[in-house]
């Protein structure tokens, strides 16, 4: 199994530093479409930094320096003409802790589309149902759409945040340890929904454990101290890693 030829995202020679401290060193990596890619490795490896760079979330962080380029469908994300708001509609992001907005389940999901000018009730209902279904949450909340979002369980809140990202029909979904605060059953539900979503989306996830990395990865990239050590299909890297440092990490010898 080799990497497909037309990647959704091309990360080319990206280096990044915070106040002179290098966080990423010359990372080059292709992210295939319609698959789950995993960035994993010990803390401080640069995986979250890279995820944030794909969404230009570090634009306002002071004292940072970036070199190299990140292409989405061949377009440089850091080119001056790129509209960042537009970019973030194409690239959704979900964080470690579910952050539902004040308001109902419905308002949470429709917040983005309404800001984008979707006022038609029928279209809103369609978006609501589609997003919640894709996030594997519809069956659990379809009778509670007007309940406050904070009344949902932690696992439901996280899937609500995924639904909120999906409501804008992004092409790429970035998830930074999306299940770190969830129990195993909720984790399984989130992982299951990701698995269904990959049919239509390009997904990148920073998992909260090697086990989760192994479970969900179609492709996995191992990061260590800002360097990309190894990037291969998940069913290879967790069985026969090529690099000793990957082997040592996945077998729990460090990290």
């Amino acid at each position, binding site marked *: 199994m080799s990497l497909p030829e037309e990647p959704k995202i091309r990360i080319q020679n990206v280096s990044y530093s915070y106040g002179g401290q290098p966080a990423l060193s010359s990372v080059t990596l292709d992210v295939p479409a319609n698959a789950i890619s995993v960035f994993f490795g010990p803390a401080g490896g640069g995986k979250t930094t890279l995820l944030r760079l794909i969404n230009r979330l570090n634009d306002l962080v002071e004292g940072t320096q970036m070199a190299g380029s990140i292409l989405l469908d061949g377009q440089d994300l850091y080119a001056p003409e790129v509209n960042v708001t537009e970019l973030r509609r194409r690239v959704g992001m979900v964080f470690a802790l579910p952050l539902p907005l004040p308001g109902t389940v419905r308002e949470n999901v429709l917040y983005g589309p309404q800001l984008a000018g979707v006022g038609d009730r029928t279209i809103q209902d369609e978006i609501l149902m589609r997003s919640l279904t894709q996030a594997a949450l519809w069956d659990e909340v379809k009778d509670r759409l007007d309940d406050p979002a904070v009344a949902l369980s932690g696992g439901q809140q996280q899937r609500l945040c995924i639904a909120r990202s999906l409501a804008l029909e992004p092409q790429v979904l970035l998830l930074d340890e999306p299940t770190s605060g969830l129990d195993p059953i909720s984790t399984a539900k989130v*992982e299951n929904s990701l698995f269904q979503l990959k049919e239509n989306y390009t997904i990148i996830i920073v998992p909260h454990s090697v086990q989760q990395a192994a479970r969900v990865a179609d492709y996995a990239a191992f990061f260590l101290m800002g360097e990309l050590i190894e990037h291969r299909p998940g069913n290879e890297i967790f069985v026969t890693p090529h690099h000793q440092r990957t082997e040592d990490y996945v077998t729990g010898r460090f990290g």
Partner: protein
Amino acid sequence: MIRETFERDLQRLQDETLILGSMVENAILESVGVLKRRDVEGAKRLIAQDRFINQKRFDIEEEALVLIATQQPMAVDLRTIAAVLDITHELERIGDYAKGIARISLMIGEQPLIKPLVDVPRMAEKACDMLHRALEAFVTQDVVLARSIPPEDEEVDDLYNQVYRELITYILSDPRRIEGANYLLWVAHNLERSADRVTNICERVIFTVTGEMTELDSDTGLAGLS
């Protein structure tokens, strides 16, 4: 855990094990058929085909390892995958016995057999029938079926003992038949060992379902020596 995908992969692993099982069954039956027909070309073909059995076993093993590494299976799932690793090993060895019988066919070459084959094909049929049902017990997780098969090994052992005694009689009556008798004795031995390995498969089925490691040994007479 992505349960649905895992279920599908686990099912595929069991299906592949069944396919390997039927490849091995065919190899055993064909090895005796080739011997009976004095089919030298068929014997060569069987020897060459053993590599497909070996390759299938490696493929299944690799899939099993990927499942263990990526899905962290527990309890019955883990026992099923462990059983697949064991059972495919047993199947691969039974495949080697078939190849061994085909080799003996080649060694006998064009010479006539020292006696017509009667009990040897019966051993092969019985062993394959047991194998078929043992694999059925595995995929249906049927402990009762798994327990009922090993006692039938006695039938194969009895046939083996009978073939042995008969061949000794041939040797005693004419020492020039030692070589020919020895060849057939090896064939019978391979078939007897094949049936023994079916018992091991049944033990794995019981382990998969109950978690209990049991010995279902039923070797009697000469068959118990090896």
